[in-house]
């Protein structure tokens, strides 16, 4: 976890940053480059899970009708996802999905947030594995819900055959098939992954760029300071992206579930 900071301090960091900067040596076994079971990334995932579980269990151990501050905060998170995402997108039937959506939202938000939290400073979601399995869960969820509600044939009929004149259908059905059942999980996963990947890459470029400029010529120090100021500015941008992407991922999942539940196309 501190390896990167030491590298920076020693002025040994490579510039420009590469994809390899996203794959840090594993923690256990220490320093291995081909072991992925216990790395900084997986450790952060476990930390996120642990923090969320402890936070929610601690704040909701003894719920009161008149909430305490902590309880109110936990309820606000759930209430936000429940009312502003689940119920808004799906309607009253959305309440039963609210627990999953809230879990998803909190998990994505916190793992995203690691991108700008000091000492973590990289989001697990910049590794496509995590957005990928979340997207697979969303994909399975909305298809399962749709099939369960309408039955296999009617669900696919609803999803694939839009209300359009028959002669346009040969064009529309492949598009619908492609966009609904093939592209959706990829777009969901890649959107989150790419945002977090690019965000981390940007921060790396400006941080390491400052060091690179400084070590090439001491007279260019003001420019490296400018580069670091840009890093700070981009950190704010990154904060926006973090919240937005967590929201977007949850809203899109809700939207897919809503589409699967809808009676007509």
């Amino acid at each position: 976890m501190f390896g990167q900071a030491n590298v920076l301090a020693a002025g040994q960091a490579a510039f420009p940053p590469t994809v390899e900067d996203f794959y840090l040596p594993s923690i256990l076994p220490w320093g291995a480059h081909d072991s992925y079971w216990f790395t900084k990334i997986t450790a952060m995932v476990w930390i996120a899970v642990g923090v969320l579980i402890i936070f929610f269990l601690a704040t909701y151990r003894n719920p009161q009708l008149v909430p305490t501050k902590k309880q109110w905060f936990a309820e606000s998170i759930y209430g936000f996802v429940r009312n502003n995402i689940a119920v808004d997108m799906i309607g009253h039937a959305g309440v039963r999905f609210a627990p999953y959506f809230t879990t998803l939202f909190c998990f994505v938000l916190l793992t995203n947030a690691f991108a700008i939290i000091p000492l973590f400073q990289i989001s697990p979601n910049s590794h496509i594995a995590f957005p990928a399995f979340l997207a697979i869960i969303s994909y399975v969820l909305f298809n399962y819900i749709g099939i369960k509600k309408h039955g296999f044939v009617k669900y696919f009929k609803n999803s694939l055959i839009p209300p359009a004149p028959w002669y346009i259908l040969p064009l529309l059905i492949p598009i619908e098939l492609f966009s609904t059942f093939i592209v959706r999980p990829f777009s969901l996963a890649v959107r989150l992954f790419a945002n977090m990947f690019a965000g981390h890459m940007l921060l790396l470029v400006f941080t390491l760029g400052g060091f690179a400029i400084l070590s090439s010529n001491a007279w260019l120090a003001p420019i490296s300071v400018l580069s670091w100021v840009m890093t700070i500015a981009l950190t704010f941008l990154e904060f926006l992206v973090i919240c937005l992407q967590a929201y977007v991922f949850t809203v899109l999942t809700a939207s897919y579930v809503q589409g699967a539940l809808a009676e007509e196309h």
Partner: protein
Amino acid sequence: MYFLAAEGGESTHNPIIPLWQEIVVGSVAFAVLCFVLMKFVFPRMEQTFQARVDAIEGGIKRAEAAQAEANQLLEQYRAQLAEARTDAAKIRDDARADAEGIRQDILAKAREESDRVIQAGKDALAAERATIVRELRTEVGTIAVDLASKIVGESLADEARRKGTVDRFLSGLESTGAR
């Protein structure tokens, strides 16, 4: 520029290909998170929300029940009051009627009493008169006979004759008196 030996410009990782170990770890971790939060936390939040709604709606219902009870009691009291008023009026009417009856009774009794007293007086007077008349008749007869015998000078000792004369006289008197 210093390149770490391990990195050395080679790119062994493709960022778009997920590492299967990370998928496994992430899935397990996320499953644990889902299990705990969806089983122990969010259902309880829903319960709390529901309890809150119930508390508010229950309060309204209780207030409505209390209001209804108060209204019912008010109705009851009003009914009782009206009943009491009717009773009072009835009692008053009865009392008035009773008083009237008693007055009539007393009046009747008084009238009867006065009638009786008057009758008794009349009777007593009649009896007195009859007695006086009888005494007078005897006395007047004797006096008349005495006077007549003195005048005439002869004693009308003969009872039968004397009696007949007196009676005839008196009858003559009575018949003139009656006329």
